[in-house]
């Protein structure tokens, strides 16, 4: 589904992502681990088309990213930044329905079917009861679930989450990891998430097996030297 070939990207003078090669299939829960500053977020941004690689190729469904029309790609791949915080607080349902944006025309309003998708996504994340609540009236864990619902609302095939477990306490980390595993199993989506901690990544491997689709292990690591640090990519 997703293939990376010798992908590199650097800010200013340092290389954040240096010649990464990897490929991912359907129905996987993959943790992207590595220390702070090892380029996890950058890699997610490259796959989300927020940044464009300086070298190498990323292909989705065998088609290079830059050949995908922006809105079409947004229907396939949904990205959740590390700390999405709207300048003006919004209701959960409005947050989630905004995930349907790639399906809207220039002047179009969300249709009832878009609200139905949003409601289903909220239900999938166990936060239907928060539908009319404003973001600033929710706990950190509740907000994370609402944003996960937003990402799911577009029914993407690949979901990219940047440190979704950050700032959650250990029991919430377990709950959220279980939720991710559950969603992967129920919807067949592939979730690729960044997390600095290998312990937190452990449930992902379990989910990997739970998926029961027999994927191959994707070990991808820095080949060659990394300018800033010797960060190592791993899915374990």
């Amino acid at each position, binding site marked *: 589904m997703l293939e990376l070939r010798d992908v590199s990207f650097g800010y200013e003078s340092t290389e954040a992502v240096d010649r990464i090669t990897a490929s991912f299939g359907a129905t996987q829960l993959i943790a992207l681990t590595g220390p702070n500053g090892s380029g996890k977020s950058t890699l997610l*941004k490259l796959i*989300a*088309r*927020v940044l464009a690689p300086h070298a190498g190729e990323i292909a989705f469904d065998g088609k290079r990213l830059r050949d995908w*029309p*922006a*809105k*079409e*790609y*947004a229907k396939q*791949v*949904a*990205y*959740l*930044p590390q700390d*999405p*915080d*709207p*300048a*003006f*607080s*919004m209701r959960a*349902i*409005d947050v989630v329905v*905004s995930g349907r*944006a*790639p399906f*809207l*025309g*220039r*002047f*179009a*309003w*969300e*249709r*009832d079917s*878009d*609200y*139905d998708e949003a*409601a289903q996504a909220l*239900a999938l994340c166990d936060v*239907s009861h928060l*539908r*009319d609540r404003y973001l600033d009236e929710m706990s950190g864990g509740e907000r994370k679930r609402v944003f996960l619902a937003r990402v799911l609302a577009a029914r993407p095939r690949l979901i*990219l989450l940047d440190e979704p477990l950050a700032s959650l306490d250990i029991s919430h980390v377990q709950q959220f990891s279980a939720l991710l595993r559950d969603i992967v199993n129920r919807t067949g989506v592939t979730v690729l998430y960044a997390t600095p901690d290998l312990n937190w990544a452990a449930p992902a491997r379990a989910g990997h097996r739970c998926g029961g689709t027999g994927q191959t292990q994707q070990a991808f690591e820095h080949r060659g030297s990394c300018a800033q640090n010797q960060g190592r990519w791993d899915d374990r």
Partner: protein
Amino acid sequence: MTSTPPERTRLSARCADATLRSVSSARQQQRLVGAVALLALLLVIALLLASSAGATNASWRAAMSGDVTARAILLGIRLPRALLAALVGATLAVAGVTFQTLLRNPLADPFILGVSGGAACGASIATAAGLARLPGVVPLIAFAGACGATGAVFLLARRREYTDPTRLLLSGLVLNAFFSAVILISFGVSRQSDLTAALRWMMGTLFGATWSDVILLTILLVIAIATLASIGNDLRMFSFGEDDAKSRGVNVERVKLIGFITASIVTGAAVSVSGIIGFVGLLVPHLIRMMWRRDFRFLLPLCALGGAILVVLADLLSRTVVTSSELPIGAFTAVLGVPFFLSLLRRNR
């Protein structure tokens, strides 16, 4: 059969959908139409009120029944002035909500990016050069100043095909400080007789509004609103940050460029005919957000109407509170807007 029959599952799913659909598409649109109708009605009332009140006694009834003086006052002076007030208010509020959305900053207003500073700078230099006595020159130079300032701010904030919102705000702030210095120097070297007009312009005035101003600003505002509406769905995606918008397929740099230029040009045009009228661009979008929704598609038309109402009423007060002279409109937009704003702020937690 121990499990639930499939039909029943489907049925209950449908019922759940129906209850969840209390937020539906049609309801959103009905609500917007209702709000627009309400504010449009208030605007018409405000315009009627503003055109019938003034130092001279002239009513619409007298004008209709053939009173030539009343007709001349109403159609020649008061109506264009009230309409221009409405247009300026609408422009400032629309520009305000656009900047707040684009910069993701609740404190942004049409003046923060140096638009008004540039206009005021142009106007004060023109005054110092003695050009204020020629008709129509000051607005023209003010408009040029506004455009120049916008361009400068944009170029300063742009680096490698990326326009950083924080750099935009900072460039605007710093340029505004520079413009204030130039304005003070210009005033220092201006003739005493030219200064009164320049000061009045600085405080905002709609004195001497003409139908050609009204027509010109109407055209610009319609184009601006249409342009902003066409990028409305993209602008909404800015709420969660530019990275998020990009990942949703929004061409962020293009939307930013279109939004800034549209809002700046129309602000420049409004400022050049009205002078500096503060608070509208900052206050009105917040008022609308507190009373209705925070969705850009609601905010755009409702801010236009809300801004129009506020400035029409402020202008009415500015010229009727004291009969001997006109007071600055900017003071009355604050006098009217701030208590209303504070009461909403208290009620909304």
